[in-house]
């Protein structure tokens, strides 16, 4: 789901803690880590033994909607891997307006990479748009992974360059692209977010007013809607 949608089955309320919920959490913990382990095996090419060694002490947490994972001004000590749910990072300007830097749905990482590396206060705030299950990766994990595997070093270098490529593309789009080009780039990167995130947040990510985003979508519908 939600993200308001007609009778969305997956928009369920937070549950009270009952014995069955407790088992649900255990299961969540297990499956979230399994998902991350698969990610390490497939994307970072780690062996089963390396993955077991690395993930032994990892912390997995369920965070509620609107819960914070990082406040502006704090040093960021973690990289967050989203097993389930949706996180975002953003800055707040002097007028109190939010500017969204990144969305992180399932299988995405989100962090303030420079704050975590240089141990500087972060300019970003990170919070949860939906209730989320998140794997917390600290510097110890990163060091251990680098010591353990050359494959991981290669993977991390590639991830860093991919991150730079993405940032470059984003700066370029914000400086020179039309509203429609920015929107089309957004939907190819995040195919399901139009249904999960309020439009004002997407407008904020794209550097548009909600009215401009609405105009873009209306114009696309005018061009592409062909009733049978």
């Amino acid at each position, binding site marked *: *789901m939600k*993200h*308001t*949608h*007609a*009778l*969305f*089955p*997956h*928009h*369920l*309320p937070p*549950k*009270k803690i009952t014995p069955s919920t407790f088992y649900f959490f255990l299961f969540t913990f297990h499956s979230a880590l399994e998902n991350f382990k698969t990610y390490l095996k497939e994307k970072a090419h780690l062996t089963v033994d390396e993955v077991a060694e690395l993930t032994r002490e990892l912390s997995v947490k369920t965070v509620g909607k609107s819960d914070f994972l990082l406040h502006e001004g704090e040093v960021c000590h973690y990289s967050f891997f989203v097993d389930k749910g949706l996180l975002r990072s953003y800055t707040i300007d002097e007028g109190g307006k939010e500017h969204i830097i990144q969305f992180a749905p399932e299988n995405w990482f989100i962090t303030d990479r420079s704050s975590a590396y240089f141990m500087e206060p972060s300019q970003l705030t990170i919070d949860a748009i939906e209730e989320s299950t998140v794997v917390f990766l600290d510097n110890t994990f990163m060091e251990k992974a680098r010591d353990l595997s050359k494959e991981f070093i290669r993977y991390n270098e590639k991830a860093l360059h991919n991150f730079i490529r993405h940032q470059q593309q984003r700066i370029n789009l914000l400086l020179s692209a039309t509203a429609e080009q920015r929107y089309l780039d957004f*939907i190819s990167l995040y*195919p*399901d977010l*139009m*249904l*999960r995130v309020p439009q004002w947040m997407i407008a904020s990510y794209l550097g548009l007013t909600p009215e401009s985003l609405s105009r873009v*979508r*209306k*114009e*696309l*519908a*005018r*061009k*592409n*809607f*062909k*009733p*049978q």
Partner: protein
Amino acid sequence: MTKRNIEIVVPPREPHFVGDGFRVHNFIPGGFRLDMERMDPFIMLDYNSKFYFPPSETPKGVSVHPHRGFETVTIAYKGKVAHHDSFGNSGIIGEGDVQWMTAASGLLHKEYHEENFSKAGGDFQMVQLWVNLPAKDKMSKPKYQAITNADIAKYQLPSNNGTIEIIAGEHRDIKGTAFTFSPVNVLNARLSKNAKETFSFAASYNTVLLVIEGSIKVNDTETVETDHLVLFENDGESFTVEAADNSVVLILSGKPLNETIAAHGPFVMNTRKELMEAFDDYNKGKFGYLEE
């Protein structure tokens, strides 16, 4: 005909709001043993149990959202709902009426409490059911069947003991009103106290009932209270419902499609590729445009 036994009686789960106008208990697919595969061809059942909405100048409801690949069936027991879609259709359904919307290849719509109902406030009670479409019909043209209560085929029980409304399917050789793409039975049994009726469907059909009002005894043994759902086994055809009070019972029975399901939010397709296409088509405006 062999007896169809009860598999499980499911109490309503904790309610949640869909938009701000529907306070629902989800039974399918979130309920215990009520996942999409088990309930095939029924893929979603949300039940707004009787709930008082105070007067509101601004109608409460659910804002614009898409659907593709299935049908939404809204059954109104109390209150009134208005809807609009991206094809320019609109309508109102009230107590006893049914809106059967074939979303098929896709549309945008929004559903709100009807204006006068919203201003006056009152009890609101509805079911929204999603019926899956066979793969060959998923991309057919969207359409509506606006079924008023007067139009629904009915079987009268002897001695004024009640009415069986045959919204779709068949009961006692009376054909239901709605057109369906696969064999689906949707019945409303409105029974007076002590009235008893037998219902029969092919054993392979997945079958549930939901007690909307009153309390009933199923197969002469199991008492089932208001807002509870009964999932039947697929071990026989027939079961009986006897009203312990004046009761209203929704009965659903459908032939499984036995096709793969790729579902995410408002899109229910057969493959992941089709699902991705649905998102892309929605994002690019191929479902049309509808003002909030």
